């Protein structure tokens, strides 16, 4: 749930998503779900020359499993908090495994 929790805080921020087929898409993150499926709005494909078929796509739903990277706006990430959240997540996982 950590990533879900994390990405939820990035809604309405501009992110760049690189898919596993190398397409990079920049857009406003509208929502994310527990599978890390992503809804993007105001989409802009970075290498539009290579993917002309995407030139008219304005928003999209991306299946979480095809995402390779999500590039974040650094200012929107609270690193210290994220560290703590990670520690908690690790503790939770450890607790569950036991």
């Amino acid at each position, binding site marked *: 749930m950590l990533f879900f929790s994390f990405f939820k805080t990035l809604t309405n921020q501009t992110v760049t998503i690189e898919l596993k087929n190398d397409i990079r898409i920049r857009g406003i993150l509208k929502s994310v779900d527990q599978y890390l499926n992503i809804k993007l709005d105001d989409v802009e494909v970075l290498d539009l020359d290579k993917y002309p078929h995407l030139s008219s796509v304005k928003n999209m739903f991306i299946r979480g499993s095809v995402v390779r990277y999500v590039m974040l706006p650094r200012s929107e990430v609270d690193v210290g908090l994220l560290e703590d959240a990670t520690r908690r*997540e690790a503790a939770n996982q450890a607790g569950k495994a036991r």
Partner: protein
Amino acid sequence: MSFFGFNTTLPRDQDTGPAGSRGFFENPDPFAEVARASALEDDDAIDFEDTYDGLGDQLNDDQDEFNDDTFGGGDTAPAVGRDFDFFGRTAQVADAIGEEHVRYTLQNPQAAPPAPLHAHVAAHPVAESTKRTGYEKYSDPGYIPDLQAKSSVWGLSQKKPEPSPAPMPAMPMPSRKMMMSLEEVEAQMRNRGQAFGPIPTQSIPQQMPDPSYMRHPQDFPTLPDGFPANIPRNSSEHSLRRVDCPRICRTLLQAFRSCMEARVLCLHLVQNNIPQNLPPQGPRHAGPPPAQRQQQMPPPPSRGPNGGLPVITNPQQLVHLTEEQRNAYLMEDAKRAKRNHKIFLLSRGNGLMTPQDKNFITRIQLQQLVAAAGNVADADPEAVLAEDFYYQVYSQIRGAPRQHPHQPLGHFAQTYLLQTGNRIGGHGNRRAFQGADNHMQRMQQQVQRAVEAAKAKPKNKQLIIEGSLGKISFSNAKAPKPMLNLKRPDSSEGARPKKVQSDLSTSDRKSLLGNIEAVYNALMSMEDMERTMPPPPEEGDTEAIQEHMEWRQQVQTLNQKLWQALKVMEPIVPNATTPHPFIAFLSYPKGKKAIPRIFRHIDQEQRVTILTMIVVHLDSLDVVRLAQHSGPGEAQLSVAVREAIDLFSLAVMPSLLGYVNEAPFNIIIGLLGLVIAQTQVIHVARTKTGLGILTMLLSRAEIVKEAGQASERDWQQWVEKFNVLFDMLEPGLAHIFPGSINSGDDMYVWQFLAAVGIGASPEQQQRLVIAVKDRVMETVGYSKTLPADMSSQRLGNVNLFMRAIGLDVELLG
């Protein structure tokens, strides 16, 4: 017998067909009224023909013949058993039921001979009253009494026009008349008609309502006893059967119509001539045949197996009722009719879904609720924090939560339910409101139960059904079914060797990072404890006090844990190759960042201990050790070191400063002594961090002095230390400035010099000025080349120091 029954039902359907509405009463009734009125005035004959004539004749003939053949004719009636007469028996029972019903409602079983007349007269007002109520359907029932009264009269007077009902043995009345043959009946009728002139005239008006009755027979059955009418409507099969029957019946009726027309015409003539006479004739007619009337009553029921029976019985009794009672009865009937209609309206969709379908839907809905409820279960803040920590805290910190900050998804189910309840409540329909409210409550309870069940479920991860060989293991999204079941080594066995290792090498990177994590874990649990702090107990509330005590106890335990994890108290090993664990802890950014949080959770003694540790190891701190700059013009420090220094001054220094600002003077003196004794002041003074700490101590001492809080002895001590420090510093004062003059970042140096200058004696101040004069002049000269704002900033920095010693940059002009 059943055959008759079908006939009667059929006309009903025919009528309903044209009406075109499935609503029981509404549509047919108004029309029925109109039709009846019109029939009374003008065209009674047509109605009468359509309904009665043909049917009566043919049916009677056939039936009678059959009856004779099979049962030995009317003469042998006693010999024939009535076993075959299923319909009749049913009808009897139905009659009895209907009668009982009326009796119960009306409580007036008495039969008064003149009553029929009254009923006849009163019928119209009743109908009107019913109309006023607004239930036109009900008007028909209102007429029922009329019809019946008339029909009874009619039956007496006219056996001929309705031979069909008369011969039917099925009729409830078991009395002798049952087996009368058609001929006998007709003869009787004729005789009577001849004997009494007026009788036929009376019979005629009665007929008029009858046709209307035939036309809208559906009104009757539905109104009095809802059962028969409703049931068939719901099922399509019934309606189909009904449709077929009417057709047959119609053909029969048409065939008879021609035969009967002549007779009907005669009747109509008579009727038209003497409609007004009816009321006066009533008593006459009613007088003679009370017994006969009763006997004749049965025939009409034979027409309609469903609704006919109760209708007849009711009117019969209604006739004898007083106005009020009848009204009451009618009102009740109207109510029932209204209710039936409502039920009908509501039941339009009935039967579309099978019970299985409904169960299926219900299950899906409940599943969804439980799925949502699964989150509801997590809705308690602890669980939410555990699962969704980053989002929750981030939302709190950054504000402007995008959705519902404290409302995890699962809350939506409950919210939705509550909202729905409120919405319905707002409607204000009292009964609907109550019902809806109860419904919502029940739903909520159900959901809660479902939630609890869902919560309880994961506890049994396996279900072993008795007698089965296998196990069924449950899984859900959060706890998927484990594909591998690996047993973790027991934590006690696994952890101990590691601990031993870490004890052996407390300063290697991995164990240091492990220590830091331990500190953070302790910190987080302390922060959790802080959140769960019970409210401060009031006087005398022993339970709250007890709770508070326990909480304090726990906090204390955690504090000890944290303290040990910090390893501040590890013995200081002089000349050790590895730094002290705590200093090593501070050398990691994570460790530096932890300091402010640690300081919140430790007491003053622990804080001073930490401060002491830092001061003692000042020159082995990474931000001091690695940050040495040997003077102006030296290469810039590496990025990592600069970042570390910035972080230290951002994270650690404020905490230390916060403590020092409240520290007693003797501790300041002690710390300064430690700096002098334990560190190489020259080196320390060449670093931003070191200068910062020195500045901190010096300025605190100055503040204490200004406030007059320092005792004379303490102050003497302080001056001694200060003098030592000054002496140690003086040679390096020219080198404490970082970088070249144009690097700009020398404010902290001027601050330090100012702190020194304030506390210095005049003689020391002179030495100070001499030592830094060059830098002052350079800076002043350099600032003239800078833009105004930067220039003033640089000069302001210098002025900090200059003013501390009673000078000003302006003087240097």
